[in-house]
């Protein structure tokens, strides 16, 4: 019983702590464009960025300033554990459809 209570307390503490450690932010790729094209995220705090590709074709999410790149298959989701960003605008693009797939994270 004591172990069960301890486990529940621990699980509760972890669940409460997780959002503070890495909140989730989401982008969607549809018709070879990012939606939204500009996403606001907190500065100086690590977070998780989930990019869902709603198109049938793959896309490569890439950013020099964010230092990430990953191919996301059609219908798939790419998950990026982002470091704490300094305030500012960090651009990204989809390499396979660079003419249209462009956007930015704004850390503030």
């Amino acid at each position, binding site marked *: 019983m004591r172990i069960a209570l301890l486990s529940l307390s621990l699980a509760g503490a972890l669940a409460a702590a997780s959002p503070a450690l890495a909140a989730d932010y989401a982008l969607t790729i549809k018709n070879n464009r990012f939606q939204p094209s500009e996403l606001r995220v907190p500065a100086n705090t690590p977070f998780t960025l989930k990019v869902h590709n709603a198109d049938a074709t*793959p896309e490569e999410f890439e950013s*020099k300033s964010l*230092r990430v790149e990953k*191919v996301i298959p059609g219908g798939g989701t790419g998950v990026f554990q982002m470091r704490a960003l300094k*305030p500012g605008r960090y651009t990204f693009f989809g390499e396979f459809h660079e003419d249209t797939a*462009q956007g930015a994270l704004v850390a503030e």
Partner: protein
Amino acid sequence: MSLKVGLLAFAVFAAAAPALAQNAGSAAPAAGSTPIFRQVETKYLFGFTTGADIGAEGEKEVEWTTDAALRKRSGRFQAYSSKVELEYVPTQFLQIALGARGTYHAIRNVPGFDDHNQAQFGGLSAEIKYLLVERAPNQPYALSLIVEPAWSRIGGAGGRETAFEIETKLAGDIELVANRLYAAANLIYEPEVVRDRGARAWGRESTLGFTGALTWRALPNVAIGGEIWGSIAPTTAISPRNMSDRRFMSARPCMCRRRKRLSSRWPGEPRSPAPPRARPAISISTISRVIAPG
């Protein structure tokens, strides 16, 4: 103690604009419009000088670098050293690489040097690059620490030797004009032990060096620049023959660097459905030439 300084001029070319370019967040350029200078990684922008940037997390690349030393003053001296490196970026702050080196020497009738005409396996190396200070939207500079231990079995003039060295480099750069003008500086410390073939005693040398470079992107995929470098060997206990080899090679009258990207995808991952927009295999080539070796 020995001191050497030199100047370089260099040009950096991208095989195609998308290799250098990353979107600046604005709309894509219309056909025939003014070229847009997008963000680039600085690590290959400066000739011999290394930029502070590392690649994107998860990136895998093969880099091929060739140094050539060519002289005609007396006899014939041609020395080529090619290094192939497999690079990987496991985190957003760390880049690691493993490399192998091959050499080719064509030396004949050069006073003080044995004749050689052969290609040989030159040695192995590893590299760890850690981003100490990252560039940010309101912070145009970056700083990295690079540690490269290496084992070498062929000397600069083609002779057999066994050498171990650890090149430690502090690489900093700054974007003076956004996406157009860049400056960089490297501070280098390189301790080394070396033994000639058949010799019992090991020689030791440590070298302090610096390089500084300025690069201007004339076009989105073409950059030109200049570089100054110097080195000082405050402690030297290497046999005269080895030292002679090193001095000869350190002048490097000509260098060609070619970087070839292998892939950023694991086997089985999908590729671009639109080949014309995909990143080209060869990213950047650099050709440098010493104007005034010390």
